[in-house]
């Protein structure tokens, strides 16, 4: 059974705009064949990019889905053999849903842009 552990730093119910400022994380086990998602939320005592990297390592994460992340942390996570889908914006559950369908890419913005009228 193909399963991936996904790590999403959160801001409220959204993917945190910045990896380094997230104080909450959603960790989900996504099963592609069965379409199931099992998840847990972890609250950190304070935002800390080093603690986030350590947590991702400790939890043996396969994929990190985040908003903005600095180059050095991006490469650190990649070096630790994690896939990093960065510059993703949207509600965490929509993002997770898109991921479980196998269509989420780095740079995806999942907010609705209706009713915005300036050019």
């Amino acid at each position, binding site marked *: 059974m193909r399963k991936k552990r996904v790590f999403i730093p959160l*801001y409220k119910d959204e993917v945190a705009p910045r990896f380094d*400022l997230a104080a909450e994380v959603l960790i989900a086990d996504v099963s592609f064949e069965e379409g199931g998602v099992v998840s847990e939320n972890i609250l950190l005592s304070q935002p800390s990019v*080093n603690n986030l990297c350590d947590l991702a390592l400790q939890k043996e994460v396969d994929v990190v889905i985040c908003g903005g992340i600095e180059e050095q942390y*991006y490469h650190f996570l990649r070096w630790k053999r994690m896939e990093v889908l960065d510059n993703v914006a949207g509600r965490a559950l929509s993002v997770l849903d898109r991921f479980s369908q196998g269509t989420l890419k780095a*740079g995806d913005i999942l*907010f*609705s842009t209706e009713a*915005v009228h*300036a*050019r």
Partner: protein
Amino acid sequence: MNLVPPALLASLDLPAILDDLPIGMAVLDREGRVLTVNTALERLTGFTREQARGVPCRHVVRSGLCQCSCPAEEPQDTDIVNRLRRRIPVRISAIPVRDVSGQELFRLDLVEDLSAIRDLERRLEEPGAIGKLVGKSRAMERILRLLPAMAQSAAPVLVVGETGTGKDAVAEAIHKLSPRSREPFVRVDCGPMSPESLDAALFGRGQTGGEISAGAFQRARGGTVYLSDVGELPDALQARLLKFLDEGTMTVAPEGAPTPSHVRLIASSPSEPEELVRANRLHQDLASRLSAVRLHLPPLRERREDIEFLLNHFLGFFSAKFRKNITGFTPKARLLLLAHDYPGNVRELRNLVEYAVMVCPRTSIPPECLPAHLLNHLAVPGGGT
């Protein structure tokens, strides 16, 4: 009451109005979603206005304030992380745009790039260092004091020093401190290369269609060309270089007309120019021209007081790079490192510390974590801590 009809708002070509502004600006609706951004903010954040439209601004600007004190009532210094994964220091100000009845229609977020200011502040404040050049000895402090003055001149500079003393770092520091720092710094290694290839690498080469394949002088524009190991330059190229230094013009082979060039030349050599002239490796005229400003970088064995400072400097640097909690060397390892004569100078010391930090599993580096060749060279009995 909204006095501005929505149709009128929709017809405004806001990007055209805002694009001429030199600082980043986002126009936000009352819910904080992006209506548009100007080109300065596109460059700063890496998001195009099409990508940013309709997205909550915290996902576009991504500042340190977005999750705690947004909108900022007063201008505040913070940073952003852009789409290219760069952290950029910025100042953010929010300006509400209201109608005559006081109702907020839009909000303008101004995002000012503070990179250049922060860079300048860091250069002025950093003790014992300019760019990659570090040192605390009297000799290095003198050099660090001289560099800003040398940087202001347009005269050629010759940097002389053994291998690994930091000649490239000096050349880069002079460029970065100079008024040319926004222009390119182009390095050309005069080492093993055929005269024709080196000629093209330096002065460019004319193509059959009349186009020019750019060389270092074209690529540097008004910046700096750095010739490393200038004593290896073939005779014909030395003559062309001398012509450039005399007349301020250069020609593109095979038959280009002389064109003015405003680059600054920095050259380096492991030997003094007098030695190179005696060995017929450098023309006397070129040696005199290049030596207008000469900087001698002493080898590490002549400034031993720098060794401990450099050990600590590189230990901190590599511990952070490899995310290791290494706070120092054991007393025995420190003694060994201080006793070594470093024939490869700062480069050797740096490589040695990098290796030790990489392999060390403890908080203090013991002799066992030093490279074997160093231990053999110093004949350490036992190699314990």
